[in-house]
C-alpha cells in the first residue's frame, strides 16, 4: 500500500520478465478473416441447405452435395468454420482454465477434434461426388 505504481503484472511475472508471447497477432488476424468469410458462407449454407433438403431425406441431401458449387461451398465452410471455432475455443480455454494439465489437455483436444472432423467431413463431400 506504499506509493508504488499500480500494475497488472505480478511480482513473479516481473521477475521472470517474459512479457508478451509475440504470437497473438496471427490469432487476431486469423479470427477476423475467417469471420468475414463465414459471414458469407454461414448464411448461404443455412438457407440453401434448408431449402434443398427439407422433407427430402437422403436423396435430397445427396442431390444438394452433388452440385459442384454446393460441394465447394460446404468444403470451404468446413475448413474455415473449423479453423474459426478452434481459434475461438482456444481463447475461451485460455481465459477460463487455470490448471496447467487441464488447460493443455483441452488445448490439444481443441486442436485435434476440429482437424479430425474437418478431414472426415471433406472426405465425405468428396466421396459423395467421386465415390463408387
Amino acid at each position, binding site marked *: *500500500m506504499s506509493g*508504488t505504481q*499500480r*500494475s*497488472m503484472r*505480478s*511480482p513473479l511475472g516481473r521477475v521472470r520478465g517474459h512479457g508478451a508471447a509475440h504470437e497473438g497477432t496471427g490469432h487476431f488476424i486469423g479470427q*477476423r478473416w475467417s*469471420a*468475414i468469410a*463465414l*459471414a458469407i458462407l*454461414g*448464411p448461404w449454407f*443455412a*438457407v440453401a441447405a*434448408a*431449402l434443398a433438403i*427439407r422433407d427430402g*431425406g*437422403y436423396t435430397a*441431401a*445427396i442431390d444438394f*452435395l452433388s452440385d459442384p458449387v454446393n460441394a465447394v461451398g*460446404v468444403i470451404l465452410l*468446413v475448413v474455415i*468454420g*473449423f479453423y474459426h*471455432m478452434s481459434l*475461438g*475455443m482456444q481463447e*475461451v480455454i485460455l481465459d477460463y482454465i487455470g490448471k496447467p494439465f487441464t488447460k493443455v489437455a483441452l488445448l490439444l483436444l481443441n486442436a485435434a*477434434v*476440429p482437424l479430425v*472432423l*474437418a478431414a*472426415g*467431413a471433406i*472426405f*465425405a*463431400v468428396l*466421396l*459423395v461426388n467421386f*465415390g463408387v
Partner: protein
Amino acid sequence: MAGAPRPEDRPLSPHLSIWRWHVTMASSILHRFTGMGLYVAAILLSVWLMAAAAGPEAYAQIEPHLAAWYGQAVMYLIVAALAYHLANGIRHLVFDTGNGLVPTDADTSAWFAILFAVAAPLGLWALLSFGA
C-alpha cells in the same frame, strides 16, 4: 488464506455477480455462448456429411432424429445462434475499426444483434413453411 495480507496493491477485477446487468454485457456473454453452441453444431454438421457419404442405411440412422421435434428444435436454435454470432460478429468487426464504441451506439447495436437472432430463425422458418 482469507484475510491474509495482500502482498501488493494490484488492481482487482470486479466479480461478475456485483455487476448490474446491461445489454453490452449480455451481448458479450451471448457471443461466447453462441460460439460454443456453434462448435457443437459444426460437429453435428460433420456427422451429417459423413452419414450422407456412408449411404442410405447410415443416413436412415440419423434421419428420424432430424425430423423429430427435438431435432427440429435443435436446428432452430442453431439458426438462432448462427444469426446472433453473425450479427454480433459484424458488430465486433465494426468495433475493430474504432467505430460504434460510444455507449449509446454500442447499446443500440447490441439490441439489434439480439433482435436479429430472434427474427432470422423465424424468417427462415416462415420461408420454409409458406414461401418458395
